[in-house]
């Protein structure tokens, strides 16, 4: 029963967010929809748990709002982490290219 209710709630949240973004940033609607979907997909388990805690009055609405916002900040940290790891990989790739060039030069020219 609860899971069914949550699915309805999730759909309503998504629809409201897409409408809200569409009204405010019409040109970005397509991209925003993808971002919203990604956010909800990544956050679904947590949102379910927090909604259950709210329904059971284990947390209040302010707590709930705080946690949902923390998820947004969590994703900022994930994005930074991914960007950093990607940069490290590119750095390694760059070093390999330089090494390969030097080795080829040693063999062919010197």
């Amino acid at each position, binding site marked *: 029963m609860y899971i069914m209710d949550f699915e309805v709630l999730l759909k309503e949240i998504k629809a409201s967010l897409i409408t809200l973004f569409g009204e405010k940033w019409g040109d970005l609607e397509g991209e925003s929809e993808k971002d919203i979907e990604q956010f909800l997909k990544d956050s679904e388990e*947590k949102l379910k*748990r*927090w909604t259950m*805690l709210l329904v059971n009055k*284990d*947390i*209040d609405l302010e*707590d709930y709002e*705080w*946690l949902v*916002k*923390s*998820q*947004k*900040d*969590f994703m*900022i*940290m*994930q994005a*930074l*982490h991914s*960007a*950093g*790891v990607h*940069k*490290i990989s*590119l*750095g*390694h790739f*760059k070093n390999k*290219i*330089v090494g390969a*060039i*030097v080795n080829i*030069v040693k063999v062919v*020219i010197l």
Partner: protein
Amino acid sequence: MKNIKHILIVVFFCNLFLSCNSLKTAAYDQYSFQKSIEIKIDASNLIDKGTTSYTDHLKDIGDLGLEIQKIIEYEKNKPNNEVTYAMWQVLANKDKNLLVGFFRRWKDKKQLKPFFIKEAKKQIMDVMDLLIQYESKKDKETKEKLLKLITNN
């Protein structure tokens, strides 16, 4: 003559790659790694006390705040360290709902609910793990090469 031209082209591209600052990342730093773990553990212990009065823990919260300020200053001044610095800035922003944001909420509410603490703590600990894991992924080769250079001379 043709060979010299080739060598010059190769040297040019090597220089181009090596001087590409946007791809440089600060080397692994044992101090940063260790300090981040210490802050995570201290924060974890303090967060658990969130059900009690904020004013009872002013000294411990102040001490933790000072440690966070120190590491931020340290990370800020390391070259090619933008990502780690940006991560610490998010954690230390009282308007964001993570590490320092938690202590701000505790201050505002004076005491927090156990379920809220449990959920908030998981969020904070998970992002601190991201920070620690990122440090551990940084290049250890650079440091090892430097140490080799120092010991060989």
